[in-house]
């Protein structure tokens, strides 16, 4: 440290004008950063605020011109209405079931594949990884039409099984990529080597040692898989769009499409709030894993 101090001493002999100009640029930079951040925060938060605010207003209040920025009273009547006007509880349970089953199935299948891809060298391992990565990258719209007919041929159109089957297939590439980088970075191979010496076979070591040790990571990636299925609209709108069985996204979008937002915008906003809450709770639970997990998965592939 003392060497640094002596090296930087010439700085203190700078003329006053230079320090003054430096201070001005500093203040301008800070002001710009603050201004831009405020702008970005308004951009990010205004829609969320507007949703929550509208959900507490009466239909008369939300149509006021100029718009009212605050609800006159906090009443949960719109939320009660949301459960009757839109069968939101039923839709949420549908989504919960489909996304939950998908998450469990996809994470199990993916963990197996990800483990061997991360740990062993075997013929075609790299090719398999490339196939998976390619599938993950290419947008879903490029395979919507054949899969629609495929599910139809299987007689699974408008069934939970059909949608879960499709979702499991789509979630796997993502989960495999994330999990294999997780196994590489945060699951030491020494553990299972010790297990194998103690007489576990390959599968025994995976099931009894690797899986329990990696549970936090697997749970986190399972949650992301869940959210992927929970948020999806494209597939659900095609494969499961019959009455009561609709998932949340399809139910909400159909309510919007049928003009429900014209007469019942406040009820719709309340439904949106309700539909967002589960994801936000999971998000808060996941936040710790996010920075490391996402970037590792996305960058290393």
């Amino acid at each position, binding site marked *: 440290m003392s060497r640094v101090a002596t090296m930087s001493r010439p700085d203190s002999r700078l003329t006053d004008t230079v320090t003054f100009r430096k201070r001005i640029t500093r203040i301008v930079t800070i002001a710009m950063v603050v201004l831009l951040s405020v702008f970005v925060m308004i951009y990010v938060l205004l829609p969320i605020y507007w949703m929550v605010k509208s959900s507490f207003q009466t239909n008369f209040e939300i149509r006021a011109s100029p718009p009212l920025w605050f609800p006159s009273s906090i009443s949960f009547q719109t939320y009660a209405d949301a459960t009757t006007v839109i069968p939101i509880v039923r839709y949420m349970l549908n989504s919960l079931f489909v996304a939950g089953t998908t998450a469990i199935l996809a994470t199990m299948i993916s963990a197996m594949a990800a483990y061997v891809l991360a740990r062993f060298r075997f013929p075609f391992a790299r090719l398999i990884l490339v196939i998976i990565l390619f599938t993950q990258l290419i947008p879903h719209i490029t395979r919507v039409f054949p899969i629609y007919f495929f599910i139809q041929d299987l007689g699974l159109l408008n069934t939970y099984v059909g949608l879960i089957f499709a979702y*499991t297939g*789509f979630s796997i590439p993502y989960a495999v990529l994330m999990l294999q980088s997780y196994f590489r970075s945060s699951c030491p191979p020494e553990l299972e080597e010790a297990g194998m010496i103690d007489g576990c076979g390959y599968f025994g070591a995976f099931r009894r040692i690797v899986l329990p040790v990696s549970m936090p990571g697997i749970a986190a990636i399972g949650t992301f898989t869940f959210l992927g299925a929970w948020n999806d609209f494209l597939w659900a709108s095609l494969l499961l769009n019959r009455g009561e069985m609709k998932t949340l996204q399809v139910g909400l979008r159909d309510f919007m499409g049928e003009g429900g937002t014209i007469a019942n915008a406040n009820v719709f906003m309340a439904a949106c709030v309700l539909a967002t809450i589960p994801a936000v709770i999971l998000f808060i639970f996941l936040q710790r894993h996010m920075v490391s997990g996402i970037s590792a998965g996305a960058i290393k592939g």
Partner: protein
Amino acid sequence: MLESRKNIFCYLMVAPALILVILLGILPMIQSLRMAFVEYNLLTLRTKGTPFVGLDNFEYLFSDSVFIQTLVQTIMFVVIVVGFVIVLGVLAAQVLNRQFVGRTFLRTTFLLPWFIPPVIAAGIWRWLLNTNLSPINSVLSDIGLINGNIGFLTDTTSIGYFSLPMLVVSLVRTWNGLPFVTVMVLAGLQSIPSDIYEAADIDGASSWQKFTRLTLPLLRPVLVVIATLLSISGIGYFEVNYVMTGGGPRDLTNILGVYAYDQAFSFYRFDYAAAASSVILILTSFIAFFYIRYLLKED
């Protein structure tokens, strides 16, 4: 002996995942390409079947002015979204990476849009931008910037194919995608060793110089990855455009994904839909090829 037992174990473990990926990933993509070369009209399917028609479907697409418009707008959409997301993401990450009171709170709220499903995001924004009830219009006219309301999603004046609704829809997609990018940039920032900034301090670098000469070049790999991933997903994007505007007004927010979907499920022309999605497949595969090659080199 031991080697082959290990290989068998590996294949057994990979098999379920690989089979599903091929069945629901690779094969449908190939089938989509194949469907683009036959006539596949749901209304005449019974009587005519699916005869091979060569490049007719692509010829139809490229003679359809709406398709050309859609293609141009898709590229516009991708460029706007990637541009905004990177500029705002780097800016936000710079701020969120600093130490200040309430940082955790700010980070959490900032990341919220990530977990708002695209359909709901589109629904909220549609409500927020409702021409007559928008608080944005009311604020702008209160401070005297505008006379009469802006039709954020209905204004059809356009410069070339660029229009206000397109900008608005891109901004909504940006809103939904911004947290992911910010998190990636934050991770990138945290991997930069802090001693190089200390060295720059000793050399008397200003914060702007540190940003442009150190931070940006060091973030470049992360930013390239973000831009690539978002370009690929942007070319096939669907949700926000479909839910907010359905591609309108006058197809000004139409993009390839919405066009393909409409061809199939509104007009029952699965052949045109397959041809349009093949265009998406070709464009995205091209980018994906370079991306995968880059990743393999890194390894």
